[in-house]
């Protein structure tokens, strides 16, 4: 296993910058997730690490050895493709065996060893009874697992996985997520894993790198990313329901420092106000709060809570997502109170330590 470093890596297609000046370091034995929407440059990054794509600028190191000019077969990486990229003319067994049978590894694996490895991997992925089938006889989910199997059968320096479970149904995803994670921990493998699903990223990654239009937004542990998003983009794209972000301002009322938004008012201590005000001259900011950090009550419990009318209620198992609407802005609150109906008027309140402040113009975090 190995560590992977990207140093100021860029990739340009014609005039389009797919990846801009990306520096990340993935440590030995780390489950490293790259999270971002379509077109963020996730797949391009993986393909540059694997050597399928050449970097336009910058350097890629695996175990401190520079990789820039090495071909994919010289880099000792295994990759899972989002489109599976199975060999359609070969049965599942041969598909999974292909990395072990590659001429570059000739003589390294006896045919018995190959067979044992394939059965071991197939058992974990629950595709053992499909080994003699052709890829076109498989369902999408089965193909995806064969694609995974073809990577897992090796023990490369790094595993690169491009949305490996994105096209599976929810049930299978729920099953494979922990299995994959546990397997990685047991063997101490290094995995670089891309996904557009923030929940997948949060639950699997040791660390997460968030990309947007080829640029790194934030790199950190799941709890750092969830609790301290560096900007509005990260805040909106990590966590469910998406963080509520409203325009707001500081104000002083009856000698008390308040933060007021369309949704709620919160009393804050001077510390918070000073910090925000120091970094920013203007007192107008964007204020974010997560759906489960807001409390609802039918009576006014404290002087600064504010009143709102329920717009829609969505059941979600034991909980309800209660949605309010302020202007064009949705505001979701997660609650276990199941009595609420659209049109009901309730009081919203939140705690100042649960608030996130973002710059009104740039969207970056203020404290």
């Amino acid at each position: 296993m190995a560590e992977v470093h990207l140093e100021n890596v860029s990739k340009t297609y014609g005039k389009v910058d797919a990846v801009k000046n990306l520096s990340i370091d993935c440590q030995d034995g780390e489950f490293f997730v790259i999270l971002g929407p379509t077109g963020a440059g996730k797949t391009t990054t993986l393909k540059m690490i694997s050597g399928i794509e050449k970097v336009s600028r910058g350097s890629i190191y695996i175990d401190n050895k520079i990789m820039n000019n090495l071909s994919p077969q010289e880099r000792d990486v295994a990759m899972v493709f989002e489109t599976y990229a199975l060999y359609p003319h070969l049965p599942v067994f041969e598909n999974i065996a292909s990395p072990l049978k590659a001429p570059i590894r000739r003589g390294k694996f006896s045919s018995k060893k190959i067979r044992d490895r394939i059965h071991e991997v197939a058992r974990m992925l629950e595709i053992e009874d499909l080994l003699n089938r052709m890829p076109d006889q498989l369902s999408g989910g089965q193909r995806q697992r064969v694609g995974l199997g073809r990577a897992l059968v090796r023990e490369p320096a790094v595993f690169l996985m491009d949305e490996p479970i994105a096209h599976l149904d929810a049930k299978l995803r729920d099953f494979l997520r922990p299995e994959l994670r546990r397997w990685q921990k047991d063997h101490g493998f290094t995995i670089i894993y891309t996904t557009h699903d923030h929940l997948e990223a949060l639950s699997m990654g040791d660390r997460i790198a968030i990309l947007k239009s080829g640029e790194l937004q934030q790199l950190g542990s799941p709890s750092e990313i969830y609790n301290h998003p560096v900007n509005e983009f990260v805040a909106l794209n990590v966590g469910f329901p998406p963080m509520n972000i409203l325009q707001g301002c500081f104000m002083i009322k009856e000698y008390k420092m308040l933060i007021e938004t369309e949704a709620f008012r919160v009393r804050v201590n001077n510390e918070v106000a000073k910090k925000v005000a120091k970094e920013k001259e203007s007192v107008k900011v964007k204020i974010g709060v997560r759906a489960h950090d807001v409390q609802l009550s039918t009576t006014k419990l404290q002087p600064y809570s504010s009143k709102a009318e329920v717009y829609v209620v969505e059941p979600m198992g034991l909980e309800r997502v209660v949605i309010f609407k302020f202007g064009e802005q949705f505001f979701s609150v997660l609650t276990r109170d199941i009595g609420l109906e659209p049109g009901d008027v309730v009081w919203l309140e939140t705690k100042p330590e649960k608030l996130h402040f973002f710059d009104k113009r740039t969207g970056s975090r203020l404290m």
Partner: protein
Amino acid sequence: MPSARIKYLSLVIRILLIGSWILFALFPIYWMVITAFKAPKDIYGGPFYFPKIDFEVAVLSWNWLFTEGRDTLISALINSIVFATLSSLFVVGIASFSAYGLARFRYRYGKLRNNDLLFLILSQRMMPPIVAIFGLFLIYKFLGLLDSRPGMVLLYMWFNLPLAVFLLRDFFAGIPLEIEQAAAVDGYTKMQQLFKFIFPMAKPALAATYMLCFIFAWNEFLGALIITFERAQTLPVLIAGMISQMEPMWWIISALGIISIIPPAILAIFLDKYLARGLLFGGPR
């Protein structure tokens, strides 16, 4: 919703249309087969349609083919088989590489891009072959290839290569790039990727292209007529020769026709397992 009557009517129309087309397509073959078993008097009299009813079955033509005409027939048959088989093999081999190149790499020759190159290649086949044959005749004469077997194989390669490149390029372009990328990551070099994955995957297309080239070469007449005299004579030229005698010997022509159907038919049966099954590249739906 269509009522039962409309459904019934449309069925009848469909059967009639398909039936008349089948008749139209199969009758010439039927006619050839029965003509091969007619005596000259039944051919020039007539028309007679049904053996034993209209005319007596005769084996005149076959007698001639197995005695007097035997050597000519065998030589022409072997020539045709060798030329078609070999030229198509070379064509598919060469075309695979050029088509793959055109599908995967970007070329710039001055203002020419891949599509222009492909058009240039295909444009060789846009004029009637007669235009080029006289020029070829001169080249062949200069090289001493007239009436030679290598010359004929070369002729059919020249004849089929553009079309094969054209057909195969589309197929290779349709193979997802990521399959090759996966093979590269699995540890295969470019050449190994081609021979282990791409070409085996392309089997149906290669087989179809081979079949098409074979049939073109098999039936080609004009080039063979002009380039060959005797030694390298092919079956179509031999058949046509039977017409230019004093009077067309339809019974022999038909018998030769039957013989000339057999090799392509055998090839088609042999290649059928590749032709029938297309491959799905099974990505996410």
